[in-house]
């Protein structure tokens, strides 16, 4: 039956179902992220070999790159959640969008901050108008825009819709912004930073980095699911099922 085929999807419309299921999932995600991130960070920070050119300062990569990965992926997760909310009018999906916005902004900030800290010993300055840094900065602005817009509405469902529309417009815009910034950078300061074209990483550095990236994914989804849980409880605080739990 067609209704059965879609049942798994319709279940997501129930906050109560989500609350019960996520209390099973989140501990697993927590364990997974501790194992992956813990192993990756200890391996990367303590056991991976020193870089020939950059010495120990390169080790911030084990935090910088995973944060940047999730900062980018987070925007699309936010936008897809918003789109699902717009199309199927699913409340939980809008809650996921609202939860993903500050999380993504925080990760973008972390990757910008760690990049600046890394830049000082490597390039001799905290800030360079490099194509990637500039794109990340604009991504940070796009996140802030979604947060500010959704919070500006007193009526929740209006804020949900407005945020989803803006996030979707942003997804079309992001590749264009990236390409234009790339072009702009090649125009204004040709080949200042050769870091990206350096010979590929050695396996002894690459494996811990991969672990850190996977661990960051697990940690991201752990935080996202936790944040959605809190928001679900807050939204349904007058409903019977929440009163039963609390």
């Amino acid at each position, binding site marked *: 039956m067609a209704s059965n085929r879609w049942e798994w999807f319709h279940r997501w419309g129930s906050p109560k179902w989500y609350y019960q299921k996520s209390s099973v999932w989140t501990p697993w995600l927590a364990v997974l992220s501790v194992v992956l991130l813990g192993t990756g960070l200890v391996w990367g920070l303590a056991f991976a070999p020193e870089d020939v050119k950059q010495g120990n300062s390169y080790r911030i990569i084990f935090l910088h790159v995973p944060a940047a990965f999730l900062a980018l992926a987070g925007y699309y997760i936010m936008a897809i959640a918003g789109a699902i909310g717009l199309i199927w009018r699913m409340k939980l999906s809008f809650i996921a969008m609202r939860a993903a916005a500050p999380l993504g902004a925080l990760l973008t900030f972390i990757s910008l901050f760690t990049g600046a800290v890394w830049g000082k010993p490597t390039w001799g300055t905290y800030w360079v108008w490099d194509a990637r840094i500039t794109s990340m900065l604009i991504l940070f602005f796009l996140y802030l825009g979604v947060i500010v817009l959704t919070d500006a509405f007193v009526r929740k469902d209006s804020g949900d819709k407005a945020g989803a529309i803006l996030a979707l417009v942003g997804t079309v815009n992001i590749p264009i*912004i990236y390409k*234009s910034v790339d072009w702009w950078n090649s125009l204004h300061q040709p080949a200042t930073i050769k870091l990206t074209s350096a010979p590929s990483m050695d396996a002894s550095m690459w494996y811990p980095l991969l672990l850190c990236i996977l661990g960051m994914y697990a940690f991201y989804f752990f935080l996202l699911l936790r944040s959605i849980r809190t928001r679900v409880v807050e939204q349904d605080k007058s409903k019977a099922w929440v009163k039963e739990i609390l």
Partner: protein
Amino acid sequence: MTIWHYFLRDLKLYFRNASELTTPLIFFLIAIAMFPLGVSPESALLRPISFGLVWVVALFCMQFSLDTLYRDDFSSGALEQLVQHEVPLAVIAISRTLVYWVCFGVPIAIMAPVLGLMLAMESSGFGVLSLTLLVGTMGMASIGAIGSALTVSLKKGSVVMTLIVLPMFVPFLIFGSGAVNAAITGANVSPPLTALVGITVLALSICPPAIAASIKMSVENG
């Protein structure tokens, strides 16, 4: 009523309210005049940054005037009527965007070389400066219209709008001022110029449904 009636109605409304029409353009002039005062009157210092300044201030000027797009129609309730109308909202949105471009984009493009002249800009770039602003303001108007429609029901909407619209103007700024830079340095103008035309056409074709959805959301929000 056909779409042509709407176009003429919106144009008439803009021209009846002369101060609304001229204020952003006066802002354009005053803001440019601040730079020599703040930076330096030396033409050697102003010349290399002149066209970039004109483009950036044109950007601010655009988002400054975006509030005029839907604010009056929202407070008078006309926007609710437009949502109900037989002409699709997206089509009305295109027409309104074009009217807005005629009222602000075209004057900005005409004023730009004069302001460039005041900043000691290389005269070989005047034509391209006007052309890029003429094209770029149309694309920025259609993206800005989304921001305007999203925030029109908010009390402090214009501040929020600035925040969401400016980052999206980045590609226009880059390709626009990049094309002028190419014209002045004698490089090939066509790559940045075609990119600018391309993103403008893309914005014009993708934005109307988003504007329509935003207007519906704002009307529902009341």
